[in-house]
């Protein structure tokens, strides 16, 4: 990709074409939420105009059309991550996916204790003495559900530490991950550090320990080719709104052998086979995990977003964003008083950079940039333990996507260069 192609791409994103505080918008907050191309907005609109109905019930024409659109979307997303159709579960977002999984795992313990369900459930269940391993760089969404699962089951939560440059201490990972590890959950790419973790290496450690390997793919699925089979993880989650789709839709991938035996989290309509006054039997995955009327139009829109990304080429998007990320870090490092979190310039990172401005609070940095039409994220980016580990409470983060040009990065850098003088730091 190059700037000329990006300028063509930008025509697909109406929201980018506006003035903010008198200047053309520079949107560098896609790590928080991305913008929607016309094809995605139209896919959702077309669904409501032509095919809206409840899925998996009703014999009428619209119900059939809606069900087809919904399940075609699932196949599109399964293909997008090289998963099988039955392994692709709709959720509201990654947070819900991780909560679903953590509650399904604690339900596995309850079921196993009463001899309900498959005999493999007792292997999946967590008990006192078992361990859940995460890393020090996790987003709260991939941390708190595990803290709570540990609380419910009596398991212990352990951390793979990071080095000062943000990289995982792989020399310590082998000590933290061991025979007691039942769950190993970590992020593919850090939403703060921009670092890409060695997924296969970690997954191999988890597998050798007999643990379930859970991947937070929120910052990778939208930005680089994702092959869950090649990465050899048991579960993966991501959110649609970070990958050109609307809010309210996300995906939980799960290896079929696990999804087939795990108890459901939410129960109700659309996920059962037989219901009596006393109890219910459940459908196999993915329906087993999709209680109630689903987010149908959002799923259709997410498929349109995946198609947009696939047609553009995730390899190409990844390379372009990596170039923007390097430009950000190199530029930031050359400004006095700026500390960039994560890998230094020249080291691999995705297209985002979080940084501290000496003597100026992140909130003030964000306000200053906004006055020049530049949108960035400020705060702890839902990673308080990571910030505390790095001796900070809040940072500023710029995150690029396929619709950002090098001019966007340059305007951002130029603005950052003026921050400390304005606030007399």
């Amino acid at each position, binding site marked *: 990709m190059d700037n000329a192609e990006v300028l063509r791409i930008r025509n697909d994103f109406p929201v980018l074409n506006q003035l903010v505080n008198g200047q053309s918008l520079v949107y560098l907050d896609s790590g928080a939420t991305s913008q929607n191309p016309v094809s995605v907005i139209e896919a959702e609109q077309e669904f409501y105009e032509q095919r809206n109905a409840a899925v998996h019930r009703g014999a009428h024409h619209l119900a059939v059309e809606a069900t087809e659109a919904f399940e075609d979307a699932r196949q599109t997303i399964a293909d997008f991550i090289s998963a099988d159709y039955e392994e692709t579960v709709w959720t509201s977002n990654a947070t819900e996916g991780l909560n679903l999984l953590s509650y399904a795992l604690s339900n596995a313990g309850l079921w196993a204790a009463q001899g309900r369900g498959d005999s493999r459930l007792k292997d999946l269940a967590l008990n006192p003495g078992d361990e859940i391993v995460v890393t020090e760089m996790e987003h709260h969404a991939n941390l708190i559900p595990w803290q709570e699962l540990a609380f419910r089951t009596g398991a212990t939560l352990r951390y793979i530490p990071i080095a000062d440059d943000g990289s995982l201490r792989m020399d310590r990972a082998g000590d933290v991950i061991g025979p007691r590890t039942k769950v190993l959950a970590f992020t593919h790419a850090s939403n703060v550090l921009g670092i890409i973790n060695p997924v296969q290496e970690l997954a191999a450690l988890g597998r050798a320990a007999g643990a379930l390997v859970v991947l937070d793919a929120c910052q990778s699925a939208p930005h680089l080719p994702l092959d869950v089979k090649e990465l050899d993880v048991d579960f993966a989650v991501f959110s649609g709104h970070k990958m050109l789709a609307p809010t309210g839709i996300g995906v939980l991938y799960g290896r079929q052998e696990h999804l087939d035996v795990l108890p459901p989290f939410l129960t109700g309509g659309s996920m059962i086979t037989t219901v009596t006054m006393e109890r219910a039997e459940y459908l196999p995955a993915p329906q087993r995990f999709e209680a109630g009327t689903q987010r149908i139009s959002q799923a259709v829109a997410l498929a349109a977003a995946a198609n947009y990304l696939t047609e553009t080429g995730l390899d190409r998007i990844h390379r372009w964003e990596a170039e923007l990320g390097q430009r950000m870090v190199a530029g930031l490092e050359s400004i006095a008083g700026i500390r960039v979190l994560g890998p230094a310039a020249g080291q691999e990172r995705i297209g985002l950079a979080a940084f501290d401005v000496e003597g100026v609070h992140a909130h003030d940095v964000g*306000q200053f940039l906004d006055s020049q039409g530049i949108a960035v994220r*400020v705060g702890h980016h839902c990673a308080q333990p990571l910030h505390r580990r790095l001796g900070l*409470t809040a940072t500023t983060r710029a995150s690029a996507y396929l619709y950002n040009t090098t001019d966007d990065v340059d305007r951002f850098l130029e603005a950052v260069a003026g921050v400390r003088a304005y606030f007399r730091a």
Partner: protein
Amino acid sequence: MSLDQLYQQIILDHSKARHGSGLAETEAPSGASTGQSHQLNPVCGDEVTLRLAVEDGKVAQVAWDGAGCSISMASASVLTDLAEGLTVAELHDVIDSFRDVLRSRGKVHADPELLGDAAAFEGVARYAARVKCAMISWVAAEDALNQAA
């Protein structure tokens, strides 16, 4: 509205001067009745711990520790200058007035006679996301005042 209207000179000055900052190093006047309050804004991590000493019905001293953006730090500094010497009732009036201005989305103008330098925060009312930054030390002061008085 321009950035300079939000970050008025007075605010930038006070964000550096931080009058009243240094809780641990500041001893409360002996014989005074004190109250202390810790306030946290979970959204941005702004944090203020403020102690207020009341003697003979008047605010004798304000001391605080805090970490946060320029608006939150300047606001605590301005509050310190303003509060010291006021009666308990007067400080309640000032806090009520400041809150009315900040929560008005720009509709209520600050009374410079009552609010003094704190009138400079009038522009913050137009930035909904920043209102809590300006309010945090005032909420702490109100809480501490209720304890001390």
